[in-house]
């Protein structure tokens, strides 16, 4: 009796399964495996299964499973990566705000001098305060918006605000001409606090303007995906519902071509609809909606990475990934006639 005969912890390796099944082993080696097989149902059943398909098929399926389970864990990393971005962005925001606070005292006097006439006029123009309040609210909203989604495109609203502001102050000044200076100066003291806060709020609007443009470039990934979602929602882009290019920035550049499916988008969308195997779990639970994926297309037009942007669960994510993976090839994106690796967003609709 040899001790190894009771060593039941070592299950058959893939190569052992295959060689045993094909009978390519010496009697001694076969005996060694059989010592395990005699009591291991797992390996016994596995052997029966291995005998049912050809070796390359088996290997292909197993590596496909491994790939899918490893992408699952990389999705986790991708999400935590996004959280990182959000964290970094809020740090940048806090830094920007504190920088404004820091530099404010230095410019305070000059701004005061410049704005004094305007600010003094404010209380006098009784009809107009709503406008001033509006500006403050708008800029506050902007800050809130930015914190929420990193997407506060302050450019246009900020411009409006400043033109509003100028227009308002002009009107105010005209009205103020009729009043005595003494009346006004008495009210300056009371307004000191208000003045301080309004200054604070007005300046960030302009500061944010620049700040946003900068962070927009830095956080291109985040804002891009959000931006891309916007045209998807639009009615006019009916044909684009499933395939939306991510890089609008690049598209604006002169010679940029987005990645496209080899046979065109219409064919690709038809493929998605026809080849979809509705997951049983989703059917049972009446799950409908869409799974949004971001594919990385390398310079050869193959998919090198799939990230799930919008998940549906119940096996739909896996099905969407399978469809895309097994689906038609892509034509790589190009910039100035040279192929480049790029990302593209694909949404797979699930309708019962």
């Amino acid at each position: 009796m040899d001790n190894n005969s009771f060593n039941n912890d070592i299950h058959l390796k893939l190569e052992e399964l295959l060689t045993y099944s094909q009978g390519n082993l010496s009697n001694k080696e076969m005996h060694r495996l059989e010592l395990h097989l005699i009591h291991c149902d797992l390996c016994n059943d596995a052997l029966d299964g291995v005998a049912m398909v050809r070796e390359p098929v088996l290997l292909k399926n197993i590596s496909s499973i491994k790939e899918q389970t490893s992408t699952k864990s990389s999705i986790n990393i991708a999400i935590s990566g996004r959280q990182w971005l959000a964290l970094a962005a809020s740090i940048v925001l806090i830094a920007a705000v504190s920088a404004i606070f820091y530099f404010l005292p230095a410019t305070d006097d000059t701004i005061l001098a410049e704005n004094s006439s305007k600010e003094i006029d404010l209380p006098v123009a009784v009809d107009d305060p709503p406008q001033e309040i509006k500006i403050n609210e708008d800029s506050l909203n902007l800050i809130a918006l930015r914190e929420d989604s990193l997407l506060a495109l302050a450019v246009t609203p900020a411009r409006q605000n400043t033109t509003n502001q100028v227009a308002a102050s002009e009107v105010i000044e005209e009205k103020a001409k009729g009043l005595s200076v003494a009346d006004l100066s008495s009210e300056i003291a009371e307004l000191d606090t208000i003045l301080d806060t309004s200054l604070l709020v007005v300046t960030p609007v302009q500061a944010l303007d620049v700040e946003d443009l900068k962070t927009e470039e830095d956080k291109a990934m985040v804002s891009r995906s959000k931006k891309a979602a916007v045209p998807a929602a639009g009615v006019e882009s009916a044909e684009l519902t499933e395939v939306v290019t991510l890089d609008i920035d690049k598209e604006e550049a002169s010679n940029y071509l987005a990645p496209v499916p080899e046979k065109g988008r219409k064919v690709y969308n038809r493929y998605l609809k026809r080849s979809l195997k509705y997951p049983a779990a989703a059917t049972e639970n009446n799950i409908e909606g869409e799974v949004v994926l971001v594919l990385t297309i390398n310079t050869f037009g193959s998919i090198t990475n799939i990230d799930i942007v919008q998940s549906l669960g119940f096996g739909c994510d896996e099905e969407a990934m399978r469809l895309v993976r097994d689906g038609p090839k892509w034509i790589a994106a190009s910039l100035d006639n040279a192929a480049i690796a790029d990302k593209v967003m694909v949404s797979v609709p699930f309708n019962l």
Partner: protein
Amino acid sequence: MRIFKGISVKTTDRELVNKYRHTSDPDYVAELYNRYVHLIFSVSLKYLKVKEDAEDISLKIFEVMQEKLTTQDIENIGGWLHTVTKNQCLMHLRLVSNTQKKEDEYANFMEIGTNTHHSSEIDIESNLSKLEECIKSLVNEQKKCIELFYKQEKCYKEVVNLTGYELKKVKSFLQNGKRNLAICMAE
């Protein structure tokens, strides 16, 4: 990443299970799954006979492992995985086929995972003289097969050639003989 977590080829299955139970870190399950994925897939293939379905079930098993291993302390991973995989396959077959017939065919396969034979084997090892007596008490065919397989270390094929029994018979003689031995030893 993996080095930081102390995952290597030498890490035993038990250690992986324990670490996962304490940390809930999916990397440990992923490693464990990778060690068994070929077996899980092959077993699924045996029962489902369709490779796409077998692949789906294999992926499902990964989820089951992630879920169950946090709460259950499983000693015999191989046995447990076999039971889980088989049951998942049978559940899938039930779901797919509405015909009662197939269900009946497989219903008696459903079982609860056991790892009884492991403890009994340790007993066998510790008491060799008693074992000799027990072997003598076996039915003739079982005795023959057991002696050829364990004592002379012949493989199934050789046992078949030497005894003239069919392969299926040899396997069943060996398995039954082994079980009888365990019972005999426990007495």
